[in-house]
Structures are given as C-alpha cells and as structure tokens.
C-alpha cells in the first residue's frame, strides 16, 4: 500500500490563524460586530477561538475528532460575519459578505467530509480486520 505523506500543514496554519483571530477578537472586540450584535460578539469570538483551537489540534495530530468538534463553531462564526456584512446593504459589504459566506460554506463542507470519515471509521470498527 502506498503511503502518501501527510498534507496537514496548510490546515494547521489556517485553523491556528482562526484561533488567534478569535483570541484577539475576544480581547479587543471587532467594532463592526460589536456594534451590530452587542454581547454576542464575545460568543462569536469564543466560537472562533475554541473552534480554531480544536480544529488545529485535530489537524496537527491527524485526529478527526478535533475538526469534527471545531468546524461547526468556526463555520457559524464566519456565518455571523456574512450576516453582519450582508445587512450593511452596501456593495462593498455585500462583496465581503459573499467571501465570508463562501468560507463558511466550505468549512461546512469539510465538516461533512470529516463526519463521513467518522462514519466509515465506526463501520470499520464493527468489522473484522482483514
């Protein structure tokens, strides 16, 4: 069986950046989101921080549980950005909203893929090892 080298570095970097972004946003709340959502900005930042940390752990250690837990939090955090920017009702806001919405959907798709890995790993555990 051919073993391909692990290609997790880009995911580790991306998730770590999201976690750091969440940590900074928790300490210094993003003004646009704070102005729109009030105290929910801290929940949003916590989602980014916790989700990013869990996903970084998962990608770093090649354990699917990290991304399975972290991705819904990160995806919904980016969804919040989408909503806040979309409701600014400006062209630049709509453009940025589309970009953040796309990231949210891609993260959601990755989450579904990781969920499939969990399902297959569970099925394999129920069968005898060939």
């Amino acid at each position: 069986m051919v073993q391909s080298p692990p290609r997790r570095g880009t995911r580790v970097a991306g998730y770590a950046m999201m976690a750091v972004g969440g940590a900074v946003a928790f300490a210094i709340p993003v003004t646009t989101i704070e102005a729109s959502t009030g105290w929910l900005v801290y929940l949003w930042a916590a989602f980014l921080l916790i989700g990013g940390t869990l996903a970084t752990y998962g990608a770093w250690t090649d354990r699917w549980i990290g991304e399975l837990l972290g991705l819904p939090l990160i995806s919904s955090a980016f969804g919040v950005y989408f909503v806040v920017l979309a409701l600014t009702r400006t062209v630049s806001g709509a453009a940025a909203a589309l970009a953040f919405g796309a990231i949210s959907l891609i993260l959601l798709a990755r989450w579904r893929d990781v969920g499939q890995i969990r399902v297959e790993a569970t099925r394999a555990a129920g069968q005898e090892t060939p």
Partner: protein
Amino acid sequence: MTNDLIIPIVTLLLGAGGVSFVRALFTGFGSLRGGARAREREAFDDLARARDAADERAEWAEADRDFWRDTAGRWRYQLVTNGVEPDPPSPTPPSARRGHTKPSKPS
C-alpha cells in the same frame, strides 16, 4: 431595521453552531468509545485494506467460477461422448434471460 434582524439571525447561527458542536461531541466520542480509529490516516488505511480484501475475494470468486465452468464443460463433454444426454440439454445463461429475471448469484 437591520439591528432588529441581526440579533435573531446571529443568535440562530451561533445556536446552530453550538447544537452541531454538542451533537458532534456525543457522536464523535461515541464512535471513539466504540473502537473507531482516532486518526484519519488509520481510517483511510482501513478503507484501503477493506477494498484490497474485497478485490482479492472477487478475484478468488472469479477463479472459482472459471474453474467450475471449465469442469462442467469437461463433464458435459464426457457425458455426451459416452452417450448420456446432459440435463438440461441446452442451458440458458443469465445474459440470455436478461429483461426477464435478475442475474442470480452463484451459491
């Protein structure tokens, strides 16, 4: 107007994320407790091994099928050359019955 909309939508979004997180917590750790591989690489390797095993089983099944087909042909030839009529005299293969029945798996 927008602020009136933002709070419920954001609450809904974050709520959906939180619910998905809790669900993933239960299903994920449930799978791990059930013996599922923790690492993605190991899970992929299991799938690859299962595919290799299925391919090998199929190869052996095809080899067995060909062996019995050849054996049946030889036996039929021996019957005919010794004046015995095989039963059925003209067997109909599944492909010739296509549209009437589904191919039956060899037992």
